[in-house]
């Protein structure tokens, strides 16, 4: 089966074309879908890309959680289909409650735009199933509110259940537990602040995002494309 990925676009999203291009370079089909869609048909994976959905008003992701498209996105997550949130997409998934925790302003109050080293922690996710635990990846970050925050009890649970997918080698933003990416309990929903879609070509700085998105596409190909709508 081939991968058909819905790339969700809100007013203010700005990474949807990069994500679609990255997916196509891996042989997947990618369709950019507008946030007012209340049904998604014929897809076997969803990516919520980066940007500033709804202008980040109130909090990043706070208004996006009520966009009609989040109904089918939550349905895809519940049915075990691969769902990935990158940067602002990660913020949308935590606000929606599909992933634990919250993302706050960076410690140091600086917008960070740099390439950082991340370490793969759990490989039991649709994003890291092709990686090795402890493997390091060079990935770009580009955010002001990427400081992953959760209480001590949640952090202990994340560690115990292996829900931390990626960790910063040198914490750039104050994230609790140096968390750069987390997964849900099942492993089909992943959110991360770094941008794998911007690390696809060594010529452009790094190709370390390629393996991550290739694993995601591979997970999608194992499931039949289907119809998603709000439960």
């Amino acid at each position, binding site marked *: 089966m081939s991968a058909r990925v819905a790339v969700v676009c809100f007013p203010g999203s700005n990474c949807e074309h990069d994500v679609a291009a990255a997916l196509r370079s891996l042989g997947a089909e990618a369709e950019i879908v507008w946030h007012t869609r209340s049904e998604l048909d014929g897809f076997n994976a969803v990516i919520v890309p980066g940007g500033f959905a709804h202008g980040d008003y109130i909090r990043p992701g706070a*208004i996006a959680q009520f966009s009609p498209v989040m109904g089918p996105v939550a349905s895809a997550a519940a049915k075990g289909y691969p769902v990935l949130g990158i940067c602002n997409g990660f913020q949308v998934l935590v606000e929606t409650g599909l992933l634990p925790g919250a993302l706050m302003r960076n*410690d140091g109050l600086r917008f960070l735009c740099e390439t950082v080293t991340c370490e793969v922690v759990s490989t039991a996710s649709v994003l890291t199933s092709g990686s090795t635990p402890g493997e390091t990846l060079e990935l770009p970050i580009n955010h002001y509110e990427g400081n992953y925050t959760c209480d001590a009890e949640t952090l202990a649970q994340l560690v115990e259940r292996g829900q931390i997918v990626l960790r910063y080698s040198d914490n750039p933003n104050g994230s609790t537990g140096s968390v750069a990416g987390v997964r849900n309990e099942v492993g089909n929903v992943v959110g991360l602040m770094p941008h794998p879609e911007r690390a696809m070509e060594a010529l452009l700085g790094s190709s370390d995002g390629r393996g991550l998105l290739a694993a995601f596409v591979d997970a999608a190909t194992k499931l039949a494309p289907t119809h998603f709508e709000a439960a």
Partner: protein
Amino acid sequence: MKFSVHVEVRGLPGIADPEGRTIERALPALGFSGVSSVRVGKVIAFDLEAADEGAARVAAEEMCARLLSNPVIQRAEVSIHSS
């Protein structure tokens, strides 16, 4: 009745507040001493039509839980005045 609602959203105790910390460091540089525990929040004010003050409070608190604040990291305080 029409009520004027004032919602103050602040970080939960124990959650890092880098903006508050920066202000706290800046004030002594301007000669203001003795300032501590600076916390920065956000105020959201609106008018609300409701049967009575209790109903207005219930509605405002639900708005806080679902949209105006993120309970994972923030606490919202609602005050209500008849306008």
